[in-house]
């Protein structure tokens, strides 16, 4: 018997409504109600970044985001990066660099990279490394991920929008 709250939000540019448990996390909500399984549950404690989403322009760990607090907010998940124009520059760069192995960290890496590039399109390698400190990858050794974020910055420059 858990208290339910009605919320409405903009999710990947679409207005949606949901009834959420008062102790539910945004991550649980995305997976349960919207079948958005990009954001991953790995640590559930804010340590790994696999669940990263962007809320009102700021990246955050959806495992530690109270679902009730999404009311009235603008939420972007990795699924929202794909548009009719195709994949996002960050996604394309991850493909180009082969920056994915098991893929568990990838949606979180991509969302954090998207956040970093939104704030600074001309990001340096040091800033990328620093900006990804909250994202853990057990497979790649990070080199290709860092190269991919740099690549994304170049792709964006070449093709505005």
């Amino acid at each position: 018997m858990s208290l339910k709250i009605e919320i409405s939000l903009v999710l990947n540019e679409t207005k949606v409504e949901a009834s959420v448990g008062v102790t539910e996390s945004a991550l649980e909500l995305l997976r349960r109600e919207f079948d958005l399984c990009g954001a991953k549950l790995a640590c559930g404690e804010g340590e790994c970044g696999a669940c990263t989403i962007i809320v009102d322009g700021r990246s955050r760990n959806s495992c530690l985001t109270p679902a009730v607090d999404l009311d009235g907010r603008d939420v972007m998940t990795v699924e929202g990066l794909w548009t009719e124009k195709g994949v996002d520059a960050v996604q394309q760069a991850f493909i180009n660099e082969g920056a994915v192995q098991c893929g568990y960290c990838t949606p979180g890496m991509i969302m954090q990279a998207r956040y970093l590039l939104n704030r600074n399109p001309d990001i340096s390698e040091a800033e990328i490394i620093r900006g990804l400190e909250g994202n853990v990858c057990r497979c790649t050794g990070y080199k290709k991920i860092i190269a991919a974020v740099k690549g994304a910055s170049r792709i964006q420059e070449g093709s505005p929008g």
Partner: protein
Amino acid sequence: MLPQNRFPPVITEYVNATSLEMALEALADGNGTPLAGGSDLWAQKDNGDGRIGSRLVNLNRIDELRGISVNNGFVRIGALTSISEILENQELAGSVALLPKVADRFASDQIRNVATVGGNIANASPAADFVLPLVALDSEVEICSNGRDPRKQALSEFFTGPGKTILGADELITAVIFKIPQKNFHGVFCKTGPRPALEISLVAMCLTGELHNGILDNSRLVFGAVGPTVICCTNTESLINGSQIDDELVAGALDMMAGEISPITDVRASKWYRTHIARTFLEQELIVCRSK
């Protein structure tokens, strides 16, 4: 004291407060738990070490609790101000660069974007990083409740134990306030933990004062994670104040400090290690002062 209703919480009411007044009303009967960024509260939710009332009071839409303002030589940081906002604030970068420096050592982007100053204080972890510089700056906490006048309390006297403060169950932290430091202000923050940035401090230290010709005056020496609350080493401060920092003073200060902190051995580090790091931090920073 918060009500002792342990997680998994039985929350029977939710209030999405849109004004300070509304939040204080929702907290008035002592059964409310404020929600700020949730980075502590939601992490405690599943591992059973949190305490929560039956009414969740969301503070996130109370604009008056947000932001940094400077007035008459005083800085006021709203309780709901995020660590990212501290890191990015131009005013602070100029006048109290110590605070953005501490913010820079705090967690990851994803956590900094939500973690609030008020939450860091109210959670009362002995390892709360942001508390250290605020104590060193002689900050006051502004506390409000329904039907009583707002009160101010020195932050150094706010904590009574791990997770324990003088805050009543009906009270809310609304801001921290401190004086802009002097021109020759010197402030450093050191911290160590298992992983850069995303680390709960094993030892954290903040040393501040007015520095001129290798002499530190009006110093503040505050440690985190080496005691049940933050520790102000007032005896060590008196020893350092106004004295030429030479080898003898450094040695004396290290021993005196070691007597003022009370580190424990736990799963994260041993008492020996914590003491060793605390000595290393202080030695290193006193030597820096000597050369300035």
